[in-house]
């Protein structure tokens, strides 16, 4: 067993595009349009520069919703680059690009090996000298969902590095994306390195001597759900040592959701609000969005959702002159920050503000107490939550963001639930007080 070095990535989603809130100016076209391709291009460059033994892609090379000739040709070209440096690529098909998806594509070059979907399959990997260095076990998705627990049957060979490729949500009950759990993976003692894919956030789930379970994360985020750094992992398996796993930043565009408390401009107007956001924007730029990247030059743009929170009279302006106000803010922010390097691109502005309220007025009110009680329950009680979700109707019946779902539906995660609850409470109190005062 010798030390091996490889690049592990997943969820390239070639063919899909960044969500940047609609149209963007021509000077950003190239950046936004090519960000996903650029990330993979960089990945291949890294692979070549770091002289890796091979590259692993744990599913979702392509984006199911966006079958694209360009993506197909691009992927093949990049793999040819790797081929010219004798770097093989091992790929499994994920839920976005199951094997059925590949049937329509121009076949990749010969250095690319796409695992079949009939069941776990092992592949010996030799180095340039013909020495066996690793065995890779994997199984592709045949279709958009995969309920077989294939990972249980991954087999390794003794005295050699054994690597398992798996595209999973890592939820034991999730029958769509391979029901699996960390425990199960760790239980399969034959596999040294679990190269996972499907979840878009980078995560090292396990690391011990000769073993690791790793999600590399998406190389280039495409939506606020894929906030923060994006990249892949460079892995070195050293015999009888903890695997060395280094995250390589690949994203040139980074998503950030920034909350802006408006309480400080209680009596202010739209201009004050604009100034406040701009100041925070400047601060973000100055501090590089407080991200610790290993290659800061890489980032060409931050895509920002500004979430206005807190209580202020500005809220009334925002609610009254909704469209005009947001258009004004959006335009001015985009205009101000588009020429900056990196660009600070405003994707959208979310208003979660409320009017200033003197809650003490309601302290003894039995109804107010009831409201607080119920809001608390909504946070805690699942069946209550379910009931609310039913109430929220069709539009909130969407699946989590990284799944392939109806783009017209939304998924209620804890964050959004919190935000919604806060706003609902605020709205009730506002109305209650207003009506109480009215004759």
């Amino acid at each position, binding site marked *: 067993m010798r030390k091996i070095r490889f690049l592990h990535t997943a969820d390239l989603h070639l063919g899909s595009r960044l969500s940047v809130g609609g149209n963007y100016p021509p000077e950003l076209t190239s950046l936004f349009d090519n960000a996903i391709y650029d990330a993979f291009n960089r990945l291949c460059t890294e692979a070549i520069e770091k002289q890796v033994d091979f590259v692993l892609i744990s599913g979702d090379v392509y984006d199911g919703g966006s*079958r694209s000739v360009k993506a197909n040709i691009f992927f093949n070209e990049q793999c040819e680059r790797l081929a010219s440096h004798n770097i093989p690529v091992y790929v499994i098909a994920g839920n976005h690009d199951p094997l059925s998806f590949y049937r329509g594509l121009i076949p990749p070059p010969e250095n690319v090996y796409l695992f079949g979907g009939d069941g776990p399959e092992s592949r010996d990997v030799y180095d340039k000298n013909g020495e066996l260095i690793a065995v890779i076990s994997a199984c592709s998705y045949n279709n958009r969902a995969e309920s077989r627990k294939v990972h249980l049957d991954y087999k390794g060979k003794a005295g050699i590095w054994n690597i398992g490729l798996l595209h999973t949500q890592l939820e034991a009950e999730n029958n769509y994306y391979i029901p699996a759990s960390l425990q199960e993976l760790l239980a399969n003692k034959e596999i040294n390195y679990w190269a996972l894919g499907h979840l878009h956030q980078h995560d090292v789930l396990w690391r011990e001597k000769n073993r690791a379970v790793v999600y590399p994360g998406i190389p280039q985020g495409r939506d606020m759900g894929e906030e923060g750094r994006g990249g892949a992992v460079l892995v070195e398996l050293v015999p009888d040592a903890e695997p060395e796993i280094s995250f390589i930043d690949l994203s040139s565009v980074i998503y950030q959701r920034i909350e802006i408390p408006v309480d400080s401009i209680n009596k202010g107007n739209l201009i004050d609000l604009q100034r406040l956001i701009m100041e925070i924007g400047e601060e973000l730029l100055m501090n590089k969005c407080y991200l610790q990247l290993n290659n800061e030059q890489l980032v060409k743009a931050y895509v920002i959702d500004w979430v206005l929170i807190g209580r202020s009279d500005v809220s009334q302006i925002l609610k009254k002159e909704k469209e005009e106000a947001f258009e004004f803010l959006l335009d001015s922010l985009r205009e101000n920050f588009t020429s900056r390097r990196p660009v600070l691109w405003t994707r959208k502005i979310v208003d979660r503000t409320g009017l200033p309220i003197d809650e003490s007025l309601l302290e003894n009110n039995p109804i107010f107490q009831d409201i607080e009680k119920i809001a608390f329950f909504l946070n805690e009680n699942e069946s209550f939550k379910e009931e609310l979700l039913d109430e929220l109707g069709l539009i909130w019946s969407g699946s989590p963001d990284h799944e392939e779902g109806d783009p017209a539906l939304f998924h209620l995660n804890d964050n959004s639930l919190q935000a919604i609850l806060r706003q609902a409470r605020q709205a009730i109190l506002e109305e209650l007080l207003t009506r109480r005062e009215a004759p």
Partner: protein
Amino acid sequence: MKIKRLFIKDFGIFHNELLEDIAPGLVVIGGHNRAGKTTFMELLRYLPFGFPRKKKFITARNRHEVEATVSINNDEEINIYLQGYSAPVIKGSKEIASTSELYNQLDPFTYQQLFTISLDELQYYRFSNSEKERLHSILLGAGLREFILVPQLEDFFYKEAERIGGKLGDPKVKEFKPHYQMIREGVKLQEEASRQLTRFHEKKEELRQTEIFINENEEKKKLLEDEVYRLDILKNNYHLYTEIEEIRNSLNKEEAGKYLQEEIRFYPEKARDILDRYNKKQELLKELSREIKEKYGVEISVPLAERISSYSREIEQLREKVASIREKISFYFEREDRLKREENELKARLLNINKNWQGEIDEIASLEIDQIQLELLQQNIDEYNKIKANLEREKDNLQEYQERRKELQDTIEGIKVNKPSRVLNLYFLGSLIFIVAGFLLARQNLYFGLFSPLGIIGLAIYALYKYTADKNYLIYQEKSKIELQNIELRIKAREARINDYMKILAPLEEELAGYRKLLNLDAGTTPEFIKDYYRILQESKARANYLNIERRELKQSLAAIEKELKDIVELINKFPELMTSGYIDLEMELYLQDQRIFSAVEDLCGFKDNILALIIQEREKGELQEEIKEIYASAGMEIENVEAGLALEEYMQHCEKYLYYTRLNEKLGQLQGQIEVVLNTEAARKAMNSFQMGFAGESEGMEDSFQKFVYLYNQFPSVDRVEESYNAKRRELDELIEELEREKNRLVSIQRELDELATDEALKKSALLIDEGRKNLSILAEEYAVKKTAAFILKKVREIFIQQTRDKLLAGASKYFREITRGEYKAILPTENILESDFQAILKDGTIQESIDLLSRGTLEQLFLAIRISRIKEIEPALPVIVDDSFVNFDSSHLMETLTLIRELANTHQIFLLTCHPHLVESCQEDIPIQYWRLEKGRFSRTSKEELVDYLSVE
């Protein structure tokens, strides 16, 4: 609060109506219909709030004006003043500033619904839903006051949510809709774009197939083009080759072979030319012979011709000689004439000078005039002339002086002049006369005295003039006398000189006389003439000598001429046959027969020229015959013994045939050439090269295009068939070209489509739509969720509240309801949904009537009355209650119970009971003080129970 006094200045039917001392308890007001009961109720109803500006409200004569005095806390009186539509004004209270304080902030709706009860208020079904809802919360009472906002808010948020996303939060509806549609559009585009990959492959395959098709058919097209081209060539040249075939047949004859031999040459042009020339020559010869005979009358014989020929040079020279002799003779005669003329002239001249001269020219020649020296003669004559001239001059001068002398003498004698003194004397005398005369006259007239001075002045002028003139004459006379003396002296000198000249002249005259004698001249001839005559004689002598020499020379030249002429004549005489110009006499002087000789020479020369020409022509004829022989030889033939002309004609016939065949042969070449030119173009070569002949054996050797052409030619029996075949192939080709063109266009469009498919523009567009739509939708979705959640929370609050408060709410009302219905019903409850505008009535046996819809009209009115009384009792302070004939639907027992309740209420509240029913008045038990008022056409008057019953009982 109680109303103590009411002054209605102007309100509807009421006018300055005053009600005083109104009882604080039950006040019964009876009146017929239209007496003003309802108007009165309306008045009280709006008293706390001011009159409403609504259309159907009670009118006023001028403007509404009402004044009320109310008491609170038993003693304090407050005035309420209402005017027009303005708000009520409070007077007389320091603490209470407004009616709303007085009425404890009660809103008009609640006050009207609870405290002013007419049938309308009890008849629930008349209310609109919103009114019902409102009323419901009023009827449910004090505990609901805060809570009542909850369902309102719930409803508000629910509706807000519904406005955004409908009841079900369906993204397809309401405000979601446009964004949803945008997303859908994007998704649709995305799906289409995703199909691009499949299309890409399909198109790739289509591209490949199309390319194969095009390549195959391009090849086919080339072959077909070649074939069409070949057929085109064949079609256009078919007739040419047919002609070639025909010509070949003609040339295959034996005769043709004879003429088309390599070494044989016919020269028909040359032969024709020779024949022409030969015939002309013959003609010329004949003509020449005839002309000579005619002209010279001589038969031309060979000896003659030869003789002429042998002398031809000499004869030729004759022409020049004759010309020279002719000139010489003419010159001779000219000279002779001139000589004679000059001799005569000389003689005439001499005679002219001197008539004495009679001699011949020879005599002149012999004159010895050389003895006189011309120079000396000249000297003498000059000397003589000079002296003579001087003499003459002196004689003239002398004469002149003599004439002057005489003239002067005459002048001197002629001048006679007065003395000057004499003039003065005359003057003085004249002056004296004038003075005397003047004096005399002045005596007559003083002015006449002027006469004498004027006359004296005139005389003075005259005397001065006369004196001057006389003096000049005297001077002139003196001068003339001096000149005369001078002239006398000059005359004497001249006379001496004349004498000298005369002495010198004498010897010279003697000398001149000697010359005259010598020259045979008269004595009187002038010295000048002597000199001239001498000179002429000298010249004439020289001339005479010259003329003699000339004559001698003439004689010699004539002899030479004669000699030459003699030689000529001798040559002429050698051709006696030609003596047509006459005989030349050799004995005679020949130069005199010159014309005859010249004519003979001319004849001889002409004859000789003709003969020589004849000889030349004969020679040329011979040459022509040689040429004929030559052309025969080059045609491989010999002249058989025939005349040259005939031979030529025969030759010409051969030529005709020769030409015929050679032309055919040439034509053949030309035709083949034409076809070859066509076949030699690049296109034709290409078309022919690709042609494979039907049978392998021959095709190898037949690579030549022409041969292939011939082969092709032989495939078709006629040009029409070629044409047919050509047209068919042409059509086939056109169709193929058209198809290829179509396919090529398709290729381009496929390629373009492929290029388009390889970009992800469509995906980008779709993503933009989805992104934009989703962004907007997310904001709305959150907003929707917030509203929905708010509604949800409020719903939950409401549920909890209802659960907790339902039973307590209507406890009081139940009690009154039980009393009115005499225990028939035991309770009133809100429905399950407390906010639903409905009640449940519970019968004494416990059965529940779920909805008021199930109750009879009377019971329903009783139910609402019970709830109202319960609520009226709850409200502080106790406010006046107005009941306007509300119990008409109650049966008597229920009425009694109701009145009992009313009476009970009157303990705490002021109650205005308005009615037109005597039985109601009658039913009022007077266990409490009751005040009765009669109302008649807007006028109030206090009355008693009995009077009121009576009054109301009268219709």
